């Protein structure tokens, strides 16, 4: 899809992959609205993008709260225009250190599902109908290899991501022919705060730089017309044949 001039809503946009994606999208000329709960980090990220000449707004909010879905979608559209690109990047691991399912509180599983699964459902529900009337739109779901592999101690998160992958496939089946497309991206292991919470012993040098992963994801978005809707793509496996050119 063409990114220049599009309105992009990125959740979990204050740090890590979300912040890097916001910056990479803004470099391609997108009008970027970043959503996260922590207002100070979020504003810093948006200000950094604006400092590079990009267009970015910080919208504090919680995707896990039903009452905020109308606000997030409405305010984003008011600020940047009707949402053309929705990136579901926000997610929570639940309590860390990660624990076995037998030790997981019911409420903690519910909260993980609310943020990682129900939140994306609600935001897509609020924006995708309008995308279909305009005949175009792209919804990107950020997933994890925990969605396909049953890792001990990753229960709540893994279940939410497996369901998210399937949610994307069903959206794609239901919206086929409308011009609204869906893409599921597994970014791989990155040097982020989330990763250090989950696996504090990991050597950061062995992990990917979120900025480099964000560039790959943006390259996927640019080439998304050639990727089947609902495809699950690993960022590390994305060929990257399409060079990322700065938008002129």
């Amino acid at each position, binding site marked *: 899809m063409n990114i220049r001039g599009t309105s992009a809503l990125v959740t979990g946009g204050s740090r890590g992959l979300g912040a890097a994606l916001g910056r990479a999208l803004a470099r391609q000329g997108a009008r970027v609205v970043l959503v996260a709960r922590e207002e100070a980090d979020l504003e810093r990220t948006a200000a950094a993008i604006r400092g590079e000449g990009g267009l970015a707004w910080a919208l504090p909010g919680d995707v896990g709260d039903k009452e*905020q879905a109308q*606000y997030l979608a409405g305010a984003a559209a008011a600020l940047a225009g*009707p949402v053309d690109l929705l990136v579901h990047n926000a997610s929570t691991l639940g309590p860390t250190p990660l624990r076995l399912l037998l030790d997981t509180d019911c409420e903690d599983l519910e909260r993980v599902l609310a943020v990682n699964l129900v939140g994306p459902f609600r935001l897509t529900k609020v924006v995708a*109908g309008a995308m279909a*009337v305009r005949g175009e739109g792209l919804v990107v779901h950020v997933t994890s290899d925990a969605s396909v592999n049953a890792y001990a101690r990753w229960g709540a998160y893994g279940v939410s991501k497996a369901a998210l992958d399937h949610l994307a496939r069903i959206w794609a089946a239901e919206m086929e022919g409308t011009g609204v497309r869906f893409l599921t991206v597994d970014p791989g292991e990155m040097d982020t705060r989330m990763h250090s919470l989950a696996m504090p012993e990991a050597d950061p040098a062995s992990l990917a730089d979120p900025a480099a992963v964000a560039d790959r994801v943006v390259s996927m978005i640019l080439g998304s017309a050639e990727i089947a809707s609902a495809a699950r793509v690993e960022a590390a496996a994305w060929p990257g044949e399409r060079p990322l050119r700065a938008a002129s």
Partner: protein
Amino acid sequence: MARGAPPPRGVVTPATWPRDEPREERLLLLDPAARTWTDARFGDLPGVLGHGDLLVVNDAATLPASLRGRTEAGQEVEVRLAGRAAGGEWWAVLFGAGDWRTRTEDRDAPPVLRPGQRIALGGDFLAEVRAVDPASARLVRLRFDRGGPALWTALYRHGRPIQYAHVRAPLALWHVQTGYAARPWAVELPSAGRALSAGLRRDLADRGVRLAGVTHAAGLSATGDPALDARLPLPEQFEIGARTVSAIAAARAQGGRVVAVGTTVVRALEGQAARHGGRIQAGAGVTDLVIGAGHRPRVVDGLLTGLHEPGSSHFELLQAFAPRDLLAAAHAHAAAHGYLAHEFGDSCLILRAS
């Protein structure tokens, strides 16, 4: 009308809550050429329209446009946003103490405010009165104390959807959105498209009926001041995209009909055509076109709308599409046969048969 009392004869009963299954809602088919009407269900719509027809919807999302405030003198006031004015300011209509359980027309008059006075809207959120309408002191122009994301965050935090005395409980923002809402330009639900569920939109697409959108800043339905009500609708902002212009041209070329979903869409399309010598072209603007019996539609062939009472400004607009006596007779039929009116009510399609 008192709550719970039966409506007077000839008045369509208000719907008191959103209903679950739009296909089961009623649809009155009115053919102005044949001068006939037929009772149908909303789910019959895909069968009534055909290949090449185009439905044009208003994709404006509904704002939480009602804010409870307090003047500097400590008086309670309800601020209902009416639309955006130039320079980042907003038009608003003020109401006195009380809430939605009282009909808009029976609400206390607001305190008379002067330019420079401020209204506290919750937390530290403030609006300053910039101008007061000379004819109706309740119509004011406001400037909020913030802009950008902070303004939208405050509006959604402190605002509620405008409520209705005929609705049985407070409405949440989820209740007053269409299934294809984008930018929050409307201060009340563009209700004609409320029943167009995703399932129905898909059935329409399967029939070869296309869907396109305009964005129109639907304004207030009532202000509580008869003099101000007589000026409704106030000038409203709209935007029509190139894709919609080509969809209209394609429908024309195929002999299809252009059906506006709601009076706001008629206003946007006909308003834009009136500005450009009868031709529709992409663009944005503000329309003050008031449509009535004397207006000959240049773009719109038919209208999907609610059931509007004779005498209302919406009923005036319908007369651009069907003669007054036929509309009045059809309305009496709807009233006598249990149709429901207002935001969550039944629908009427005014369209010549293909």
